[in-house]
């Protein structure tokens, strides 16, 4: 079976007056129906840009090359009008700040039903019925009454639930969640994560979860893509995250997660600053300048080395047999 979303050799560059920004550089990714993947990376690693490229919502100064196949059709080749028919219906997006991602001048009821109206799926009245049902599913009490409220009358966590419900209203096959829990408290974050996961399973959707939080990614996703400087550093199954990781960058990330128990020791961190991808890329590995395992070969750009079916890594260390963490 062909994957729901298959990205091959995707590159995104932004042209500004001064310089060219190499935001995404030859990314491969695939997601099967009913599965969840997470794209993890620091800010500026290009993780959100990938998904914005999939939705074709990037600004006009972006040039995109490669292939993004949704259900077999390359969305990068579609005319804008056809693209608009996909947005909201085939693939929908949940944004980071629900508060500023909702139109403040409209009630959430009017907003929620919009995707259905845009795609002529139902009358306004029927769509409201669906909205009520969905709000109930995401755990908003008194949904019928709440439909008449404005976004500012909700709390942050509630609004994120509303946003999720709104993304689901047209029953998309692919849901993209761009850091949906980053702006929330830890407790609320857990609730929203569980909700997202539950909805994804029930509906058999594909879910792409973009986050900077490895722990969150491990909770939600089946597969994890770790990005750095616009490259995928390592692709690994969530279940193997703590045992089989190879790339020094990912190791650094895992080690720098603070632990609540155990003796209080100095927290390990990755030295240096995230690489600047403005202007140009280094010839070799983008992580080399911060890597403590750097050796001669790192002057060459590492290729993707497959370790198992679900596990690949772009690091020369993996070439001569895998050194276990």
């Amino acid at each position: 079976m062909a994957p729901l979303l298959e990205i091959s050799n995707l590159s995104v560059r932004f042209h500004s007056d001064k310089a060219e920004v190499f935001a995404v550089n030859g990314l491969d990714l695939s997601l099967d129906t009913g599965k969840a993947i997470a794209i993890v990376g620091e800010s500026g690693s290009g993780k959100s840009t990938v998904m914005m490229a999939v939705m074709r919502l990037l600004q006009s100064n972006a040039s995109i090359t490669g292939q993004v196949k949704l259900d077999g059709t390359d969305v990068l080749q579609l005319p804008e009008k056809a693209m608009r028919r996909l947005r909201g219906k085939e693939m929908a997006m949940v944004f980071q700040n629900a508060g500023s991602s909702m139109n403040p001048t409209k009630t959430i009821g009017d907003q929620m039903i919009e995707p259905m109206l845009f795609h002529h799926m139902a009358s306004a009245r029927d769509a409201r019925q669906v909205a009520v049902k969905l709000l109930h599913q995401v755990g908003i009490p008194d949904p019928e009454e709440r439909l008449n409220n404005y976004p500012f009358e909700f709390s942050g966590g509630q609004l994120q639930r509303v946003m999720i419900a709104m993304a689901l209203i047209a029953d998309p096959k692919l849901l993209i969640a761009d850091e949906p829990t980053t702006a929330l408290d830890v407790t609320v974050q857990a609730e929203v994560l569980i909700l997202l996961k539950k909805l994804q399973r029930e509906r058999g959707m594909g879910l792409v979860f973009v986050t900077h939080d490895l722990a969150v990614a491990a909770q939600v996703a089946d597969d994890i893509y770790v990005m750095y400087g616009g490259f995928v550093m390592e692709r690994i199954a969530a279940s193997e995250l703590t045992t089989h990781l190879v790339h020094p960058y990912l190791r650094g990330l895992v080690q720098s997660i603070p632990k609540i128990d155990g003796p209080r020791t100095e927290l390990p961190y990755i030295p240096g600053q995230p690489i600047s991808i403005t202007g140009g890329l280094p010839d070799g590995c983008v992580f080399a300048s911060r890597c403590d395992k750097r050796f001669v070969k790192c002057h060459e750009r590492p290729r993707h080395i497959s370790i198992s079916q679900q596990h690949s890594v772009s690091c020369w260390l993996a070439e001569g047999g895998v050194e276990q963490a």
Partner: protein
Amino acid sequence: MNRAMSLNSVIGNREQLIGARASSWRRMWSRLTKNRKALIGAIMVFLIVFLAVFANWISPYAYQQADFTSLNQGPSLSHILGTDSLGRDLFTRINYGLRSVCIVGFGAEFVELTVGVMVGALAAYKGGWVDNVLMRLVDAVASFPSFLISMILVTMMGRILPVMLLAVAATSWVGMARVVRSQVLRVRQTEYIQAARSMGASSLTIILRYILPNAMGPIVVAVSFGIPANMMAEAGLSLVGLGINPPTPDLGVMISEGQQSIMSYPWQLIGPVGVFIIALLGFTFLGDGLRDMFDTRSRR
């Protein structure tokens, strides 16, 4: 005390809370009516518009009806604002004069709004060279002395109401275009526009249902300040002798005539000027109130 009140409203019963959030219009209305100055402004505007619209019914005389037995009179029971040098009732003439003033004031503002919103929204939404060309056009028009342009237009095309209206609107739309452009630019980069696009909204939907409602506040304020400005411009034209052709009454013409006889018959100036002041102040107060109403920073 303030604190106690806010606490009270928080724990107030459910019906009250729901009632309070019933509609944003009602909430805006209550904010407007709480603002004393805006309320007075609204009443003044209402009075002026009422006089203008119902001039036929309210006025005790016909506006061209001269009474040569009562020239240059002061206020009396039969002529409450006195008469002019031809014995015509000033109150009547003011009512009809208000009619032309309102037609020019509102009409020019309507033209201004239509053109300004189209140009401003298009420039901001399209950006790039479209924006550049349109805004340079706006700059060019704005750099002309507007009164001169209006004078030229009226001289060329005749002293009739539609021409006055266009002459006033011809230059004032640029301010509106700038306001609209800046508002659209502000709203356009908000996240909810991005979210709307991710749901499959078309450009037209985004402009009509997302950008314009959110850009409305400053535009409404600009309109409420634009109307008195148009009235002033029209009166200014009349004052220099380029007003509407007599015998159609015109406030500006009446003021300029009254000003010539200010020493001997002051009432001929006081009446028209007083009413004109009410009109201008009314709109300005209302505009101030609307600005407070839409200003999110001054909420609470």
